[in-house]
Protein backbone atom coordinates (compact mmCIF):
# COMPACT_ATOMS: atom_id res chain seq x y z
CA UNK A 1 0.00 0.00 0.00
CA UNK A 2 1.29 3.37 -0.87
CA UNK A 3 0.53 6.28 1.36
CA UNK A 4 -1.64 8.27 -1.03
CA UNK A 5 -5.43 8.24 -0.73
CA UNK A 6 -7.98 10.46 -2.41
CA UNK A 7 -10.51 11.76 0.07
CA UNK A 8 -12.41 14.35 -1.98
CA UNK A 9 -14.20 14.14 -5.31
CA UNK A 10 -12.30 17.18 -6.52
CA UNK A 11 -9.09 15.19 -6.12
CA UNK A 12 -10.58 12.47 -8.27
CA UNK A 13 -11.09 14.78 -11.19
CA UNK A 14 -7.96 16.90 -10.71
CA UNK A 15 -5.68 16.98 -13.71
CA UNK A 16 -2.55 16.80 -11.57
CA UNK A 17 -2.85 15.15 -8.23
CA UNK A 18 0.39 14.23 -6.56
CA UNK A 19 3.10 16.70 -5.62
CA UNK A 20 5.61 14.87 -7.84
CA UNK A 21 3.34 15.29 -10.84
CA UNK A 22 3.00 18.99 -10.14
CA UNK A 23 6.74 19.39 -9.81
CA UNK A 24 7.39 17.57 -13.08
CA UNK A 25 4.70 19.60 -14.81
CA UNK A 26 6.27 22.86 -13.61
CA UNK A 27 9.67 21.69 -14.83
CA UNK A 28 8.10 20.81 -18.18
CA UNK A 29 6.53 24.27 -18.46
CA UNK A 30 9.86 25.93 -17.71
CA UNK A 31 11.54 23.73 -20.30
CA UNK A 32 8.93 24.72 -22.90
CA UNK A 33 9.38 28.39 -22.05
CA UNK A 34 13.15 28.43 -22.38
CA UNK A 35 13.37 25.96 -25.27
CA UNK A 36 13.24 28.53 -28.12
CA UNK A 37 16.11 30.54 -26.61
CA UNK A 38 18.45 27.58 -26.79
CA UNK A 39 17.22 25.88 -29.95
CA UNK A 40 18.61 26.62 -33.39
CA UNK A 41 16.50 27.81 -36.30
CA UNK A 42 15.77 24.28 -37.55
CA UNK A 43 14.76 22.98 -34.13
CA UNK A 44 12.55 26.00 -33.54
CA UNK A 45 10.81 25.39 -36.86
CA UNK A 46 10.35 21.73 -35.99
CA UNK A 47 8.84 22.65 -32.64
CA UNK A 48 6.46 25.03 -34.40
CA UNK A 49 5.40 22.32 -36.81
CA UNK A 50 4.81 19.88 -33.96
CA UNK A 51 2.74 22.42 -32.05
CA UNK A 52 0.69 23.26 -35.11
CA UNK A 53 0.17 19.61 -36.00
CA UNK A 54 -0.79 18.73 -32.45
CA UNK A 55 -3.91 20.93 -32.62
CA UNK A 56 -5.24 18.97 -35.57
CA UNK A 57 -4.14 15.66 -34.06
CA UNK A 58 -5.89 16.37 -30.75
CA UNK A 59 -9.03 17.30 -32.68
CA UNK A 60 -8.92 14.06 -34.64
CA UNK A 61 -8.20 12.10 -31.49
CA UNK A 62 -11.34 13.50 -29.87
CA UNK A 63 -13.39 12.36 -32.82
CA UNK A 64 -11.83 9.01 -33.66
CA UNK A 65 -10.03 7.98 -30.52
CA UNK A 66 -12.74 8.95 -28.04
CA UNK A 67 -16.08 9.27 -29.85
CA UNK A 68 -15.18 6.39 -32.18
CA UNK A 69 -16.24 8.07 -35.41
CA UNK A 70 -13.88 7.34 -38.27
CA UNK A 71 -13.02 10.36 -40.35
CA UNK A 72 -10.86 10.40 -43.45
CA UNK A 73 -11.73 14.00 -44.26
CA UNK A 74 -9.30 15.74 -41.95
CA UNK A 75 -7.30 17.43 -44.69
CA UNK A 76 -10.56 18.74 -46.14
CA UNK A 77 -11.37 20.44 -42.84
CA UNK A 78 -7.89 21.93 -42.57
CA UNK A 79 -8.32 23.14 -46.13
CA UNK A 80 -11.66 24.71 -45.22
CA UNK A 81 -10.07 26.70 -42.38
CA UNK A 82 -7.08 27.71 -44.47
CA UNK A 83 -9.18 28.75 -47.45
CA UNK A 84 -11.61 30.72 -45.31
CA UNK A 85 -8.65 32.63 -43.97
CA UNK A 86 -7.07 33.03 -47.38
CA UNK A 87 -10.27 34.19 -49.05
CA UNK A 88 -11.16 36.66 -46.30
CA UNK A 89 -7.63 38.05 -46.36
CA UNK A 90 -7.57 38.39 -50.12
CA UNK A 91 -11.09 39.65 -50.74
CA UNK A 92 -11.74 41.81 -47.69
CA UNK A 93 -8.27 42.32 -46.28
CA UNK A 94 -9.63 40.94 -43.03
CA UNK A 95 -7.41 40.91 -39.97
CA UNK A 96 -6.44 37.98 -37.80
CA UNK A 97 -9.14 38.57 -35.18
CA UNK A 98 -11.78 38.27 -37.91
CA UNK A 99 -10.44 35.32 -39.89
CA UNK A 100 -9.91 33.07 -36.87
CA UNK A 101 -13.55 33.14 -35.67
CA UNK A 102 -14.72 32.95 -39.28
CA UNK A 103 -12.64 29.82 -39.83
CA UNK A 104 -13.98 28.36 -36.62
CA UNK A 105 -17.55 29.08 -37.77
CA UNK A 106 -16.95 27.48 -41.16
CA UNK A 107 -15.38 24.53 -39.38
CA UNK A 108 -18.38 24.14 -37.10
CA UNK A 109 -20.76 24.28 -40.06
CA UNK A 110 -18.71 21.75 -42.00
CA UNK A 111 -18.55 19.58 -38.90
CA UNK A 112 -22.31 19.54 -38.88
CA UNK A 113 -22.31 18.55 -42.56
CA UNK A 114 -19.55 15.95 -42.10
CA UNK A 115 -21.36 14.68 -39.04
CA UNK A 116 -24.80 14.30 -40.57
CA UNK A 117 -23.91 11.07 -42.41
CA UNK A 118 -22.73 9.65 -39.07
CA UNK A 119 -26.31 9.57 -37.86
CA UNK A 120 -27.12 6.92 -40.43
CA UNK A 121 -23.77 5.47 -41.36
CA UNK A 122 -21.26 3.62 -39.31
CA UNK A 123 -17.72 2.36 -39.62
CA UNK A 124 -16.54 1.99 -43.14
CA UNK A 125 -19.37 3.88 -44.79
CA UNK A 126 -18.77 6.87 -42.54
CA UNK A 127 -15.07 6.85 -43.40
CA UNK A 128 -15.95 6.78 -47.07
CA UNK A 129 -18.46 9.62 -46.84
CA UNK A 130 -15.96 11.87 -45.04
CA UNK A 131 -13.43 10.96 -47.71
CA UNK A 132 -15.89 12.05 -50.39
CA UNK A 133 -16.47 15.33 -48.57
CA UNK A 134 -12.71 15.87 -48.43
CA UNK A 135 -12.50 15.70 -52.21
CA UNK A 136 -15.39 18.11 -52.59
CA UNK A 137 -14.00 20.71 -50.16
CA UNK A 138 -10.56 20.60 -51.75
CA UNK A 139 -12.13 20.82 -55.20
CA UNK A 140 -14.09 23.93 -54.20
CA UNK A 141 -10.88 25.50 -52.86
CA UNK A 142 -9.10 24.72 -56.12
CA UNK A 143 -12.02 26.15 -58.10
CA UNK A 144 -11.74 29.42 -56.19
CA UNK A 145 -8.02 29.56 -56.93
CA UNK A 146 -8.42 29.05 -60.66
CA UNK A 147 -11.51 31.22 -61.07
CA UNK A 148 -9.90 34.17 -59.27
CA UNK A 149 -6.59 33.70 -61.00
CA UNK A 150 -4.50 32.60 -58.02
CA UNK A 151 -3.62 29.41 -59.83
CA UNK A 152 -0.44 28.86 -57.83
CA UNK A 153 -2.01 29.63 -54.48
CA UNK A 154 -3.09 32.50 -52.27
CA UNK A 155 -0.34 34.49 -50.56
CA UNK A 156 -1.33 36.05 -47.26
CA UNK A 157 0.42 38.39 -44.88
CA UNK A 158 1.17 36.94 -41.49
CA UNK A 159 0.69 39.13 -38.42
CA UNK A 160 3.57 37.31 -36.70
CA UNK A 161 6.88 37.61 -38.41
CA UNK A 162 9.47 35.86 -36.28
CA UNK A 163 9.75 32.14 -35.60
CA UNK A 164 10.06 32.98 -31.91
CA UNK A 165 6.73 34.80 -31.96
CA UNK A 166 5.14 31.87 -33.75
CA UNK A 167 6.51 29.50 -31.15
CA UNK A 168 4.72 31.24 -28.31
CA UNK A 169 1.55 31.82 -30.32
CA UNK A 170 1.37 28.18 -31.34
CA UNK A 171 2.30 27.04 -27.86
CA UNK A 172 -0.62 29.04 -26.47
CA UNK A 173 -2.96 27.69 -29.12
CA UNK A 174 -1.87 24.10 -28.56
CA UNK A 175 -2.11 24.47 -24.79
CA UNK A 176 -5.59 25.96 -25.09
CA UNK A 177 -6.68 23.12 -27.36
CA UNK A 178 -5.27 20.53 -25.02
CA UNK A 179 -6.91 22.11 -22.00
CA UNK A 180 -10.23 22.29 -23.81
CA UNK A 181 -9.93 18.65 -24.81
CA UNK A 182 -9.02 17.56 -21.28
CA UNK A 183 -11.93 19.45 -19.80
CA UNK A 184 -14.38 18.17 -22.40
CA UNK A 185 -13.26 14.62 -21.77
CA UNK A 186 -13.79 14.72 -18.03
CA UNK A 187 -17.18 16.36 -18.37
CA UNK A 188 -20.53 14.94 -19.43
CA UNK A 189 -19.82 15.44 -23.14
CA UNK A 190 -16.62 13.43 -23.08
CA UNK A 191 -18.18 10.64 -21.06
CA UNK A 192 -21.06 10.54 -23.54
CA UNK A 193 -18.57 10.25 -26.43
CA UNK A 194 -16.84 7.34 -24.79
CA UNK A 195 -20.14 5.64 -24.08
CA UNK A 196 -21.15 6.01 -27.72
CA UNK A 197 -17.79 4.60 -28.74
CA UNK A 198 -18.31 1.63 -26.44
CA UNK A 199 -21.75 0.66 -27.68
CA UNK A 200 -24.44 2.88 -29.07
CA UNK A 201 -27.42 0.91 -27.83
CA UNK A 202 -26.12 0.88 -24.27
CA UNK A 203 -25.26 4.58 -24.41
CA UNK A 204 -28.81 5.30 -25.50
CA UNK A 205 -30.17 3.18 -22.66
CA UNK A 206 -28.08 5.25 -20.25
CA UNK A 207 -29.93 8.35 -21.34
CA UNK A 208 -27.34 9.71 -23.73
CA UNK A 209 -28.62 11.22 -26.95
CA UNK A 210 -26.46 9.37 -29.46
CA UNK A 211 -27.22 11.83 -32.22
CA UNK A 212 -26.21 14.77 -30.11
CA UNK A 213 -23.04 13.10 -28.90
CA UNK A 214 -21.96 12.22 -32.43
CA UNK A 215 -22.78 15.60 -33.88
CA UNK A 216 -21.10 17.43 -31.01
CA UNK A 217 -17.98 15.31 -31.50
CA UNK A 218 -17.91 16.20 -35.19
CA UNK A 219 -18.57 19.88 -34.56
CA UNK A 220 -15.94 20.25 -31.82
CA UNK A 221 -13.37 18.31 -33.79
CA UNK A 222 -13.92 20.20 -37.03
CA UNK A 223 -13.98 23.58 -35.34
CA UNK A 224 -10.60 22.87 -33.78
CA UNK A 225 -9.31 21.51 -37.08
CA UNK A 226 -10.47 24.56 -39.02
CA UNK A 227 -8.76 26.80 -36.47
CA UNK A 228 -5.63 24.74 -37.01
CA UNK A 229 -6.14 25.30 -40.74
CA UNK A 230 -6.36 29.04 -40.19
CA UNK A 231 -3.11 29.02 -38.18
CA UNK A 232 -1.58 26.82 -40.86
CA UNK A 233 -2.44 29.42 -43.50
CA UNK A 234 -0.80 32.21 -41.53
CA UNK A 235 2.15 30.05 -40.54
CA UNK A 236 2.95 29.12 -44.13
CA UNK A 237 1.82 32.51 -45.46
CA UNK A 238 0.43 30.60 -48.39
CA UNK A 239 -2.73 28.60 -49.18
CA UNK A 240 -2.97 26.18 -52.06
CA UNK A 241 -5.25 23.25 -52.78
CA UNK A 242 -2.27 21.01 -53.47
CA UNK A 243 -1.16 21.23 -49.84
CA UNK A 244 -4.30 19.43 -48.71
CA UNK A 245 -3.94 16.12 -50.45
CA UNK A 246 -5.14 12.81 -49.17
CA UNK A 247 -1.62 12.25 -47.91
CA UNK A 248 -2.16 14.97 -45.30
CA UNK A 249 -5.22 13.13 -44.01
CA UNK A 250 -3.21 9.96 -43.87
CA UNK A 251 -0.51 11.75 -41.93
CA UNK A 252 -3.01 12.95 -39.35
CA UNK A 253 -4.58 9.52 -39.05
CA UNK A 254 -1.08 8.11 -38.70
CA UNK A 255 -0.43 10.55 -35.86
CA UNK A 256 -3.23 9.14 -33.77
CA UNK A 257 -2.50 5.53 -34.75
CA UNK A 258 1.22 5.77 -34.09
CA UNK A 259 0.63 7.80 -30.94
CA UNK A 260 -1.99 5.45 -29.59
CA UNK A 261 -5.77 5.50 -29.90
CA UNK A 262 -7.80 6.96 -27.07
CA UNK A 263 -5.07 9.02 -25.46
CA UNK A 264 -4.31 12.74 -25.72
CA UNK A 265 -0.68 12.07 -24.83
CA UNK A 266 -0.73 9.70 -27.78
CA UNK A 267 -1.89 12.48 -30.10
CA UNK A 268 1.04 14.65 -29.00
CA UNK A 269 3.62 11.86 -29.24
CA UNK A 270 2.23 10.80 -32.61
CA UNK A 271 2.46 14.36 -33.94
CA UNK A 272 6.07 14.64 -32.86
CA UNK A 273 6.82 11.30 -34.48
CA UNK A 274 5.15 12.10 -37.79
CA UNK A 275 6.64 15.60 -38.03
CA UNK A 276 10.15 14.49 -37.17
CA UNK A 277 10.01 11.32 -39.27
CA UNK A 278 11.07 12.84 -42.64
CA UNK A 279 14.04 14.51 -40.96
CA UNK A 280 15.08 11.23 -39.38
CA UNK A 281 14.82 9.53 -42.78
CA UNK A 282 16.88 12.30 -44.30
CA UNK A 283 19.50 11.91 -41.59
CA UNK A 284 19.49 8.15 -42.10
CA UNK A 285 20.06 8.55 -45.84
CA UNK A 286 22.95 10.91 -45.20
CA UNK A 287 24.44 8.44 -42.77
CA UNK A 288 24.23 5.66 -45.35
CA UNK A 289 25.72 7.96 -47.97
CA UNK A 290 22.81 7.56 -50.39
CA UNK A 291 21.37 11.05 -49.93
CA UNK A 292 22.77 12.43 -53.17
CA UNK A 293 21.72 9.46 -55.25
CA UNK A 294 18.15 9.60 -53.97
CA UNK A 295 17.88 13.39 -53.82
CA UNK A 296 15.29 13.59 -56.61
CA UNK A 297 13.07 10.90 -55.12
CA UNK A 298 13.30 11.82 -51.44
CA UNK A 299 9.52 12.03 -51.24
CA UNK A 300 9.23 8.46 -52.51
CA UNK A 301 11.61 7.24 -49.81
CA UNK A 302 9.48 9.10 -47.29
CA UNK A 303 6.28 7.55 -48.61
CA UNK A 304 7.68 4.05 -48.53
CA UNK A 305 9.24 4.40 -45.08
CA UNK A 306 6.12 6.04 -43.71
CA UNK A 307 3.89 3.28 -45.02
CA UNK A 308 6.22 0.69 -43.57
CA UNK A 309 6.28 2.32 -40.12
CA UNK A 310 2.50 2.61 -40.12
CA UNK A 311 2.14 -1.06 -40.99
CA UNK A 312 4.62 -2.06 -38.30
CA UNK A 313 2.70 -0.11 -35.69
CA UNK A 314 -0.66 -1.48 -36.82
CA UNK A 315 0.59 -5.04 -36.75
CA UNK A 316 2.94 -5.12 -33.79
CA UNK A 317 1.93 -2.25 -31.50
CA UNK A 318 -1.73 -1.31 -32.06
CA UNK A 319 -1.62 0.71 -28.83
CA UNK A 320 0.99 2.97 -30.39
CA UNK A 321 3.74 4.89 -28.65
CA UNK A 322 1.58 5.26 -25.55
CA UNK A 323 1.32 1.48 -25.38
CA UNK A 324 5.11 1.22 -25.56
CA UNK A 325 5.46 3.89 -22.90
CA UNK A 326 3.01 2.12 -20.59
CA UNK A 327 4.81 -1.15 -21.06
CA UNK A 328 8.12 0.46 -20.11
CA UNK A 329 6.45 2.11 -17.13
CA UNK A 330 4.98 -1.21 -15.98
CA UNK A 331 8.29 -2.94 -16.38
CA UNK A 332 9.91 -0.50 -13.98
CA UNK A 333 7.00 -0.42 -11.56
CA UNK A 334 6.75 -4.18 -11.28
CA UNK A 335 10.47 -4.91 -11.21
CA UNK A 336 11.70 -7.49 -10.29
CA UNK A 337 8.42 -9.15 -11.25
CA UNK A 338 7.12 -9.52 -14.78
CA UNK A 339 3.40 -9.48 -14.05
CA UNK A 340 0.99 -7.95 -11.62
CA UNK A 341 0.22 -10.22 -8.67
CA UNK A 342 -2.97 -12.18 -9.21
CA UNK A 343 -4.48 -11.39 -5.81
CA UNK A 344 -4.07 -8.17 -3.88
Amino acid at each position, binding site marked *: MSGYFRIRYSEDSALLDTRTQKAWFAAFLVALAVYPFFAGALWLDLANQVLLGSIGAVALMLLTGYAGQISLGHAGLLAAGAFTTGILCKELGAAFWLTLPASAAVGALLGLIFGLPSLRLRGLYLAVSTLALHFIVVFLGGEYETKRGFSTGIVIESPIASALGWYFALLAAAAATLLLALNLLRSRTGRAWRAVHGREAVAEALGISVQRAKLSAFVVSSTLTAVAGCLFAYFRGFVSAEAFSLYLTIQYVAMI*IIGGMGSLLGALLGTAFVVLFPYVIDGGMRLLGVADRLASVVFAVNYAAFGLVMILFLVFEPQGLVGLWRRVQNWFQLWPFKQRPLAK
Partner: protein
Amino acid sequence: MQLAVNIAVLASIYALICCGYVLIYRVSRVLSLAHGELMLLGAYGLYATASLFKGHPLLALAAAAALALMVGAAVYLALMWRMTGESVLAAVLATIALGILLRGAMILVFGTQTQYPLRDLGWSNASVPVFGARISTVGLALVLATAAVYLGLFAFLRWTRWGIRMRAAGQHPLLAAQRGIGLHGVYALAWGLATFTGGMAGMLIACDAGLEGTLVIIGFKAFPAALVGGLDSLVGALVGSLVVAAAEVLLIHHVDPLLSDVVPFAVLLAMLAVRPWGLFGTREELDRV
Protein backbone atom coordinates in the same frame (compact mmCIF):
# COMPACT_ATOMS: atom_id res chain seq x y z
CA MET B 1 -22.94 8.34 -80.18
CA GLN B 2 -19.38 9.27 -79.32
CA LEU B 3 -20.61 10.12 -75.84
CA ALA B 4 -22.17 6.68 -75.43
CA VAL B 5 -18.92 5.05 -76.50
CA ASN B 6 -16.94 7.21 -74.08
CA ILE B 7 -19.31 6.25 -71.29
CA ALA B 8 -18.97 2.58 -72.17
CA VAL B 9 -15.18 2.74 -72.08
CA LEU B 10 -15.02 4.68 -68.81
CA ALA B 11 -17.66 2.43 -67.28
CA SER B 12 -15.69 -0.66 -68.20
CA ILE B 13 -12.53 0.87 -66.68
CA TYR B 14 -14.40 1.52 -63.46
CA ALA B 15 -16.13 -1.84 -63.53
CA LEU B 16 -12.88 -3.71 -64.05
CA ILE B 17 -11.28 -1.91 -61.10
CA CYS B 18 -14.41 -2.12 -58.96
CA CYS B 19 -14.71 -5.84 -59.03
CA GLY B 20 -11.50 -5.95 -56.99
CA TYR B 21 -13.04 -3.78 -54.28
CA VAL B 22 -16.19 -5.89 -54.36
CA LEU B 23 -14.41 -9.25 -54.30
CA ILE B 24 -12.26 -8.38 -51.31
CA TYR B 25 -15.10 -6.74 -49.44
CA ARG B 26 -17.58 -9.49 -50.15
CA VAL B 27 -15.26 -12.23 -49.04
CA SER B 28 -13.38 -10.67 -46.14
CA ARG B 29 -15.30 -7.46 -45.23
CA VAL B 30 -12.23 -5.32 -45.75
CA LEU B 31 -12.30 -2.25 -47.97
CA SER B 32 -8.94 -2.19 -49.70
CA LEU B 33 -7.85 1.39 -50.29
CA ALA B 34 -4.57 0.11 -51.72
CA HIS B 35 -6.39 -1.08 -54.81
CA GLY B 36 -5.29 1.88 -56.92
CA GLU B 37 -1.67 1.15 -56.10
CA LEU B 38 -2.08 -2.57 -56.72
CA MET B 39 -3.58 -1.70 -60.08
CA LEU B 40 -0.57 0.44 -60.86
CA LEU B 41 1.71 -2.34 -59.71
CA GLY B 42 0.01 -4.65 -62.20
CA ALA B 43 0.65 -2.13 -64.95
CA TYR B 44 4.31 -1.84 -63.97
CA GLY B 45 4.43 -5.63 -63.97
CA LEU B 46 3.42 -5.55 -67.63
CA TYR B 47 6.05 -2.90 -68.31
CA ALA B 48 8.70 -5.12 -66.71
CA THR B 49 7.65 -8.29 -68.50
CA ALA B 50 7.30 -6.43 -71.81
CA SER B 51 10.94 -5.48 -71.72
CA LEU B 52 11.88 -8.93 -70.43
CA PHE B 53 10.12 -10.91 -73.15
CA LYS B 54 10.81 -8.65 -76.10
CA GLY B 55 9.00 -9.85 -79.22
CA HIS B 56 6.61 -12.16 -77.38
CA PRO B 57 3.76 -9.82 -76.39
CA LEU B 58 1.32 -12.61 -75.50
CA LEU B 59 3.87 -14.28 -73.26
CA ALA B 60 4.52 -10.92 -71.59
CA LEU B 61 0.81 -10.37 -70.98
CA ALA B 62 0.38 -13.85 -69.50
CA ALA B 63 3.42 -13.41 -67.27
CA ALA B 64 2.17 -10.03 -66.05
CA ALA B 65 -1.25 -11.47 -65.28
CA ALA B 66 0.27 -14.36 -63.34
CA LEU B 67 2.50 -11.90 -61.50
CA ALA B 68 -0.50 -9.78 -60.47
CA LEU B 69 -2.31 -12.86 -59.16
CA MET B 70 0.70 -13.82 -57.07
CA VAL B 71 1.27 -10.29 -55.77
CA GLY B 72 -2.32 -10.14 -54.53
CA ALA B 73 -2.05 -13.43 -52.69
CA ALA B 74 1.31 -12.33 -51.30
CA VAL B 75 -0.23 -9.10 -49.96
CA TYR B 76 -2.75 -11.13 -48.04
CA LEU B 77 -0.25 -13.65 -46.74
CA ALA B 78 2.31 -11.02 -45.78
CA LEU B 79 0.06 -8.40 -44.22
CA MET B 80 -3.68 -8.67 -44.36
CA TRP B 81 -4.10 -12.00 -42.60
CA ARG B 82 -2.85 -10.31 -39.45
CA MET B 83 -5.73 -7.85 -39.79
CA THR B 84 -8.44 -10.52 -39.89
CA GLY B 85 -10.76 -9.93 -36.97
CA GLU B 86 -9.29 -6.50 -36.21
CA SER B 87 -11.50 -3.41 -36.23
CA VAL B 88 -12.68 -1.86 -39.48
CA LEU B 89 -10.44 1.14 -38.96
CA ALA B 90 -7.29 -0.93 -38.42
CA ALA B 91 -7.89 -2.99 -41.55
CA VAL B 92 -8.64 0.05 -43.72
CA LEU B 93 -5.62 1.87 -42.36
CA ALA B 94 -3.41 -1.13 -43.03
CA THR B 95 -4.45 -1.01 -46.68
CA ILE B 96 -3.85 2.75 -46.79
CA ALA B 97 -0.39 2.26 -45.31
CA LEU B 98 0.29 -0.49 -47.81
CA GLY B 99 -0.80 1.90 -50.55
CA ILE B 100 1.70 4.57 -49.53
CA LEU B 101 4.43 1.98 -49.16
CA LEU B 102 3.76 0.64 -52.65
CA ARG B 103 3.53 4.10 -54.16
CA GLY B 104 6.90 5.08 -52.73
CA ALA B 105 8.48 1.77 -53.68
CA MET B 106 7.18 1.95 -57.25
CA ILE B 107 8.65 5.41 -57.74
CA LEU B 108 11.95 4.22 -56.33
CA VAL B 109 12.05 1.20 -58.60
CA PHE B 110 10.50 2.47 -61.82
CA GLY B 111 11.14 6.21 -61.64
CA THR B 112 8.73 9.04 -62.36
CA GLN B 113 8.91 9.04 -66.15
CA THR B 114 5.88 8.16 -68.22
CA GLN B 115 6.30 4.74 -69.84
CA TYR B 116 4.51 3.31 -72.85
CA PRO B 117 4.14 -0.46 -72.40
CA LEU B 118 2.12 -0.77 -75.60
CA ARG B 119 5.11 0.38 -77.63
CA ASP B 120 7.32 -2.05 -75.75
CA LEU B 121 4.92 -4.83 -76.66
CA GLY B 122 5.26 -3.81 -80.29
CA TRP B 123 1.58 -3.05 -80.85
CA SER B 124 -0.11 0.13 -81.96
CA ASN B 125 -3.30 1.73 -80.76
CA ALA B 126 -5.33 2.41 -83.89
CA SER B 127 -8.85 3.71 -83.57
CA VAL B 128 -11.72 1.59 -84.79
CA PRO B 129 -15.08 2.89 -86.02
CA VAL B 130 -18.06 1.48 -84.12
CA PHE B 131 -21.64 2.53 -84.94
CA GLY B 132 -20.48 5.84 -86.34
CA ALA B 133 -18.23 6.66 -83.38
CA ARG B 134 -14.54 6.04 -82.85
CA ILE B 135 -13.01 3.88 -80.18
CA SER B 136 -9.35 3.03 -79.68
CA THR B 137 -8.29 -0.59 -79.98
CA VAL B 138 -7.30 -0.63 -76.33
CA GLY B 139 -10.66 0.88 -75.40
CA LEU B 140 -12.37 -1.92 -77.25
CA ALA B 141 -10.11 -4.43 -75.52
CA LEU B 142 -11.10 -2.86 -72.20
CA VAL B 143 -14.80 -3.32 -72.85
CA LEU B 144 -14.28 -6.90 -73.99
CA ALA B 145 -11.97 -7.70 -71.07
CA THR B 146 -14.50 -6.33 -68.60
CA ALA B 147 -17.26 -8.43 -70.13
CA ALA B 148 -15.02 -11.52 -70.04
CA VAL B 149 -13.92 -10.90 -66.44
CA TYR B 150 -17.46 -10.42 -65.19
CA LEU B 151 -18.79 -13.48 -67.02
CA GLY B 152 -15.84 -15.48 -65.73
CA LEU B 153 -16.39 -14.30 -62.17
CA PHE B 154 -20.10 -15.09 -62.27
CA ALA B 155 -19.39 -18.59 -63.50
CA PHE B 156 -16.55 -19.02 -61.01
CA LEU B 157 -18.61 -17.94 -58.01
CA ARG B 158 -21.65 -19.93 -59.04
CA TRP B 159 -20.33 -23.26 -60.20
CA THR B 160 -16.80 -23.95 -59.08
CA ARG B 161 -15.80 -25.43 -55.75
CA TRP B 162 -13.55 -22.50 -54.80
CA GLY B 163 -16.20 -20.04 -55.86
CA ILE B 164 -18.74 -21.63 -53.56
CA ARG B 165 -16.17 -21.60 -50.76
CA MET B 166 -15.62 -17.91 -51.33
CA ARG B 167 -19.32 -17.15 -51.13
CA ALA B 168 -19.62 -19.23 -47.99
CA ALA B 169 -16.72 -17.43 -46.33
CA GLY B 170 -18.28 -14.11 -47.24
CA GLN B 171 -21.66 -15.07 -45.86
CA HIS B 172 -20.58 -16.44 -42.50
CA PRO B 173 -16.88 -16.88 -41.85
CA LEU B 174 -17.33 -18.80 -38.59
CA LEU B 175 -19.72 -21.38 -40.00
CA ALA B 176 -17.63 -21.67 -43.14
CA ALA B 177 -14.52 -22.34 -41.08
CA GLN B 178 -16.36 -24.94 -39.04
CA ARG B 179 -17.40 -26.73 -42.21
CA GLY B 180 -13.74 -27.16 -43.03
CA ILE B 181 -13.15 -24.26 -45.40
CA GLY B 182 -9.66 -22.82 -44.98
CA LEU B 183 -10.40 -19.13 -44.60
CA HIS B 184 -6.85 -17.99 -45.19
CA GLY B 185 -6.73 -19.81 -48.51
CA VAL B 186 -10.04 -18.34 -49.59
CA TYR B 187 -9.06 -14.82 -48.54
CA ALA B 188 -5.70 -15.11 -50.26
CA LEU B 189 -7.48 -16.22 -53.43
CA ALA B 190 -9.85 -13.25 -53.19
CA TRP B 191 -6.91 -10.85 -52.87
CA GLY B 192 -5.17 -12.60 -55.74
CA LEU B 193 -8.20 -12.35 -58.03
CA ALA B 194 -8.83 -8.75 -57.03
CA THR B 195 -5.25 -7.77 -57.80
CA PHE B 196 -5.41 -9.74 -61.02
CA THR B 197 -8.49 -7.90 -62.29
CA GLY B 198 -7.24 -4.56 -60.98
CA GLY B 199 -3.85 -5.22 -62.53
CA MET B 200 -5.53 -6.03 -65.83
CA ALA B 201 -7.34 -2.71 -65.70
CA GLY B 202 -4.04 -1.01 -64.91
CA MET B 203 -2.29 -2.69 -67.82
CA LEU B 204 -4.99 -1.72 -70.29
CA ILE B 205 -5.20 1.87 -69.06
CA ALA B 206 -1.42 2.11 -69.21
CA CYS B 207 -1.51 0.82 -72.79
CA ASP B 208 -4.06 3.46 -73.67
CA ALA B 209 -2.78 6.53 -71.89
CA GLY B 210 0.79 5.81 -70.83
CA LEU B 211 2.02 4.53 -67.52
CA GLU B 212 2.75 6.90 -64.65
CA GLY B 213 2.07 7.38 -60.95
CA THR B 214 -1.02 9.53 -61.38
CA LEU B 215 -2.99 6.51 -62.62
CA VAL B 216 -3.62 5.77 -58.94
CA ILE B 217 -6.29 8.47 -59.01
CA ILE B 218 -8.33 6.42 -61.47
CA GLY B 219 -8.23 3.51 -59.06
CA PHE B 220 -9.40 5.85 -56.35
CA LYS B 221 -12.20 7.27 -58.43
CA ALA B 222 -13.48 3.77 -59.12
CA PHE B 223 -14.35 2.98 -55.55
CA PRO B 224 -17.35 5.31 -55.37
CA ALA B 225 -18.69 3.21 -58.24
CA ALA B 226 -18.36 0.09 -56.11
CA LEU B 227 -20.16 1.78 -53.22
CA VAL B 228 -22.91 3.19 -55.40
CA GLY B 229 -23.65 -0.27 -56.69
CA GLY B 230 -23.34 -1.90 -53.29
CA LEU B 231 -20.03 -3.09 -51.92
CA ASP B 232 -20.92 -6.76 -51.89
CA SER B 233 -22.59 -7.14 -55.23
CA LEU B 234 -20.88 -7.72 -58.57
CA VAL B 235 -23.99 -6.77 -60.54
CA GLY B 236 -24.06 -3.64 -58.42
CA ALA B 237 -20.46 -2.87 -59.36
CA LEU B 238 -21.41 -3.02 -63.05
CA VAL B 239 -24.45 -0.81 -62.64
CA GLY B 240 -22.64 1.56 -60.27
CA SER B 241 -19.77 1.95 -62.75
CA LEU B 242 -22.24 2.74 -65.48
CA VAL B 243 -24.01 5.35 -63.33
CA VAL B 244 -20.79 7.02 -62.19
CA ALA B 245 -19.23 6.94 -65.65
CA ALA B 246 -22.36 8.36 -67.26
CA ALA B 247 -22.57 11.15 -64.69
CA GLU B 248 -18.90 11.94 -65.12
CA VAL B 249 -18.84 11.96 -68.93
CA LEU B 250 -22.08 13.93 -69.26
CA LEU B 251 -21.09 16.55 -66.68
CA ILE B 252 -17.63 16.96 -68.18
CA HIS B 253 -19.17 17.34 -71.62
CA HIS B 254 -21.95 19.73 -70.67
CA VAL B 255 -20.68 21.63 -67.62
CA ASP B 256 -16.99 21.75 -66.79
CA PRO B 257 -14.02 19.47 -67.56
CA LEU B 258 -12.49 20.27 -64.15
CA LEU B 259 -15.33 18.36 -62.49
CA SER B 260 -13.83 15.02 -63.51
CA ASP B 261 -12.15 14.41 -60.14
CA VAL B 262 -15.15 15.18 -57.93
CA VAL B 263 -18.15 13.82 -59.80
CA PRO B 264 -17.72 10.22 -58.62
CA PHE B 265 -17.52 11.42 -55.02
CA ALA B 266 -20.54 13.68 -55.37
CA VAL B 267 -22.54 10.77 -56.77
CA LEU B 268 -21.28 8.67 -53.87
CA LEU B 269 -22.42 11.23 -51.30
CA ALA B 270 -25.86 11.43 -52.86
CA MET B 271 -26.08 7.66 -52.74
CA LEU B 272 -24.90 7.46 -49.13
CA ALA B 273 -27.54 9.96 -48.12
CA VAL B 274 -30.35 8.04 -49.77
CA ARG B 275 -29.40 4.39 -49.69
CA PRO B 276 -26.12 3.81 -47.83
CA TRP B 277 -25.88 0.16 -48.72
CA GLY B 278 -25.96 0.89 -52.43
CA LEU B 279 -28.23 -0.08 -55.28
CA PHE B 280 -27.76 -3.83 -55.05
CA GLY B 281 -25.95 -4.28 -51.76
CA THR B 282 -27.33 -6.11 -48.77
CA ARG B 283 -28.31 -4.05 -45.79
CA GLU B 284 -26.08 -4.89 -42.89
CA GLU B 285 -25.33 -3.98 -39.33
CA LEU B 286 -22.15 -1.98 -39.70
CA ASP B 287 -19.23 -2.22 -37.38
CA ARG B 288 -17.92 0.41 -35.00
CA VAL B 289 -14.29 1.46 -34.64
